[in-house]
């Protein structure tokens, strides 16, 4: 199995390995994720009904209210947090939220390259996939 590597920018450090949950559609955080179950609620979103818990969550960027940072914190406190977050462009909702909730996060990634990956490994700001 040949694994490939992409280097990104570390927003919050941390290494991990796990299954991917991938979307090319921006994600609504506040009001868009059930904080007690980790399930994506946003009506009509391709990931509606999926659970973010212990996944490496890959999406272009967040949208909606800046209270979303506190949503990430609540998800983490309820043990429903993703293992890590990978963004194309990290904006303040995610940047602030991952520092508060201590979730590893990388951005400046061409996420389309990860579209067909099942499993990712994050190490020192590098993403390994096959």
């Amino acid at each position, binding site marked *: 199995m040949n694994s490939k590597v992409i280097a990104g920018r570390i927003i919050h450090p941390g290494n991990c390995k796990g299954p991917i949950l991938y979307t090319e559609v921006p994600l609504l955080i506040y009001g868009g994720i059930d904080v007690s179950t980790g399930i994506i609620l946003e009506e009509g979103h391709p990931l509606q009904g999926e659970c973010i818990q212990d996944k490496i969550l890959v999406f272009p960027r967040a949208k909606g209210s*800046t*209270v979303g*940072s506190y949503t990430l914190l609540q998800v*983490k*406190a309820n043990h429903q947090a993703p293992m890590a977050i990978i963004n194309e462009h990290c904006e*303040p*909702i995610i940047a602030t*939220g991952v520092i*508060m909730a201590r979730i590893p996060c990388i951005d400046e990634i061409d996420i389309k390259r990860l579209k067909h990956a099942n499993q990712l490994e994050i190490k020192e700001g590098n993403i390994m996939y096959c």
Partner: protein
Amino acid sequence: MNLTGLQESMLQGEQGPGTRLAMKIIVTLGRIYHAENLIPVSSCQVSGVSYKSIGKAGLDFLEELRDGGAHARVPTTLNPCGLDLERWLSLGFSQSFYRDQAQVLQAYRELDISLTCSCTPYLLGNCPVQGSHIAWAESSAVSYANSVLGARTNREGGPAALSAALTGYTANYGLHLDENRKPTVKVHVECEVATYWDFARLGLLLGRKLGNEIPVITGLSPRKCTPSTLRQLGASMAASGAIALYHVEDVTPEITAFPNWAIHAGEKEIHVNSLPSRPEFVKDTMVGKPVDLVFFGCPHSSMEEVESILSFLKEQQVQASVWIATASMLRAEMEKKGILTGLDSKIQVISDTCIVVCPIEELSFKRVITDSGKAFYYLSNKPGVDVALLPRKKCMEIAINGKLDEGGNT
């Protein structure tokens, strides 16, 4: 990014773990936006206060900062919370929600933040001067500070504004820089915009059309651009769009100081020939039905606004509940002046909260009328609530009649 010795020492934790966490957030935001350095701020306005939106995890976070020795290093005020701290019981809020909310406020107090609980800090002594750098959350206050006062802030989230308060710094990017404050689109208003309702409707329209552009608006009568109508315009634009700064020709300070900025925006322009009419703001299903609540004060009402609404409603019997939201500091002054006496018991001048941040599902308000474009926008998205946006005078008549009539165009 270039950090000074003090900033670096905060980041390394030499000022305690609470300050380190806050500095980490500030520096990360700076990295994301490629800021060259951090700049000192003269004041902060923090959102993320209602227990409903930040939850137990949010409370734990605030307590972690406090236990980590963090405290506000610049004058800092607080956004509205989830209930009226004096009148919560009679207004129908639950004991458990009060307990949770009070703990959040206690944590903010221990971080040396003033418990103003209002979205209009500039009416309460936190009034930045033109050109000063600040870090404010609360989109309507951001819009007012940037546009009407000429201070400089990005549209901060709650934790980012809090981090600026706890370090005294923000990252130098976006609206802190001259070149990013110039208008990007010219708006020609070619219809009459005179009343509070007109400014609310214009704001909702422009926010929807312009997203996060910086408009320079021409064609408004400077006489009609009062602090009150501009507050409503900015709040509505920031709700339906993401406008953090606007200019009004012959009115707002920066476009007056740099009139050639308007030329810069000449390439992109839009024309407003008419404002959206009543059917866009009143659902048919509401007509003829009893109204539960008439809400004023989004953003929080000034002393003058409360006085003017009450001068109409005084000695009147009302059918619907009436809430006029303001800051507790101003409410205390009103009480002293005696303007809150002689009111029907259904009329409440409330403070510390508003209809947008309180847990409306705990109260039994199904049909709400308001004069605020911002409140209309947010309530329209709440399940189980019908809302209408109408002129202030009409709102007061509806309070007295208790129902919404056919009403023609207004």
